[in-house]
């Protein structure tokens, strides 16, 4: 089994703990071995790179150096913000001079160039939607209409992120389709939700997240599915503020894609953390169950019609 060095990111210990716990459970269920990076520290996130790029890369690089001891295939993280900082650090440190500067700030220098990937990339490429679909022949999420939202930095800029299409990513679409869900052509897949401005400028987040929720609702989505803790928080926790900005009252559950994968794979509720979401996920799951019941009824009726025709013909 391939072993990955796992970097949960700070929000995984707090506001996005259901993302962390569902990620771990889904990886276990799909045979992806995660080894936590011992004593990992914050990557610096957005605030560090707005101060200085050397500081930002050094904060990320401390974790790259710690991961070297684990002899793992790659360092992987669920959080796109951590992913960006770690990947940008690796990218810039390919310049020898810059690497020397970064290493001067560290206790333990970075020796190797560890590949960094998102957990989504590993699940989409190393496991793959076909293998997931094969495990779930009954399509447990049939009838669930999803707006897939990747956030702005999972795939951008493409030279650094090197994953999927930067305007129309499909990795999460394909994984959700493998569960039987109906994945809608969401036009704002990579538009920014307002990122980390929620606290200092919530008017900005309310407006940008409001646009996203409007688009999802207008498409007829039962829920939004996302891969980013910050996007999830802006769309879910701040949904009331986004609604006030858009002049609508939204009731749109916002799942992490790992929660839906876990739900389909039969991961225990305690690991899925659906009760940690703010907008009640029942709204979407009830709609899914109703659609499944309708489908069963349609199939039963068409079967009955066939029998009647057969009987008449006989």
């Amino acid at each position, binding site marked *: 089994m391939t072993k990955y060095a796992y970097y949960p990111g*700070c*929000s995984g*210990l*707090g*506001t*996005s*703990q*259901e993302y962390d716990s569902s990620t771990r459970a889904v990886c276990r269920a799909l045979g992806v071995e995660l080894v936590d990076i011992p*004593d*990992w*520290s*914050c990557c*610096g*996130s*957005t*605030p*560090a*790179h*707005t*101060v*200085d*790029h*050397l*500081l930002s890369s*050094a*904060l990320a690089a*401390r974790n790259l150096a710690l991961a070297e001891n684990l002899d793992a295939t790659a360092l992987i993280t669920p959080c796109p913000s951590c992913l960006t900082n770690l990947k940008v650090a690796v990218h810039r440190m390919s310049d020898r001079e810059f690497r020397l*500067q970064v290493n*001067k*700030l*560290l*206790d333990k220098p970075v020796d190797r160039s560890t590949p960094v990937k998102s957990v989504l990339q590993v699940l989409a490429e190393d496991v793959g939607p076909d293998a997931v679909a094969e495990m779930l022949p009954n399509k447990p999420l049939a009838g669930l209409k999803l707006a897939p939202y990747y956030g*702005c*930095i999972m795939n*951008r*800029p*493409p030279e650094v992120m090197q994953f999927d299409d930067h*305007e129309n990513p499909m990795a999460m679409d394909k994984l959700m389709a493998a569960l039987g869900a109906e994945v809608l052509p969401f036009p704002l897949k*990579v*538009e*920014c939700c*307002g*990122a*980390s*401005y*929620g*606290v*200092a*400028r*919530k*008017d*900005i987040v309310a*407006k*940008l997240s409001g646009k996203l929720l409007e688009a999802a609702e207008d498409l007829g989505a039962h829920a939004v599915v996302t891969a980013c803790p910050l996007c999830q928080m802006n769309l879910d*926790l701040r949904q*009331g*503020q986004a609604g006030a900005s858009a002049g609508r009252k939204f009731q749109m559950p916002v799942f992490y894609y790992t929660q839906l994968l876990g739900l389909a794979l039969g991961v225990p509720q305690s690991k899925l953390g659906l*009760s*940690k979401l*703010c907008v009640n996920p029942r709204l979407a799951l009830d709609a899914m169950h109703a659609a499944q019941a309708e489908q069963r009824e349609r199939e039963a009726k068409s079967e009955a019609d066939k029998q009647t025709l057969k009987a008449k013909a006989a």
Partner: protein
Amino acid sequence: MEVVDIHASCDHEFIAQVEAESEQKVRLCYQCGNCTAGCPYTFAYDIPVSQVMRLLQAGQKERLLSCKSIWLCATCESCTTRCPNEIDVARIMDVLRHMARREGYVSERNVKVFWDTFLDSVEKHGRVFEMGLLATYVAKTGRFWTDMDLGPKILPKGKLSFKPHEIQGKDKVAEIFKRFRETQQ
């Protein structure tokens, strides 16, 4: 229309400095406007990003370092990804705020306070302490009523810890900050 007398006010040294720190060639911008067309933040900016690029070509240091836009760019990478001349525009925006910080310009104080408080938390604990970050931000800005509506939604979920997640190597993280400051002197 605003007229800028480039001959009188162009700061060539400023352009060279931005080019060196961002590793980008500012003169490559031919003002197609693709960056502004895709920028989700234009509605909140005082200067749209394509005009930031033009003012940069014209060496308008004071105008740029004192503008709000450089503090509101979220580095969503839309501009960088879509620039036909492969200019890393988001990196230039980042570099402009680095310079603004160093030279004491702050046009979006709350944004700066939030980022600084975040980094203080990392320096102190090794990982960011979300509750502590919010409490300190509110104390520093006096914005006691902001987001009061969110408390009843998030607190019952039991996700926010009231204690920081200290790591063993927090001194090592603090050392990174200390050594970084030494390089800046």
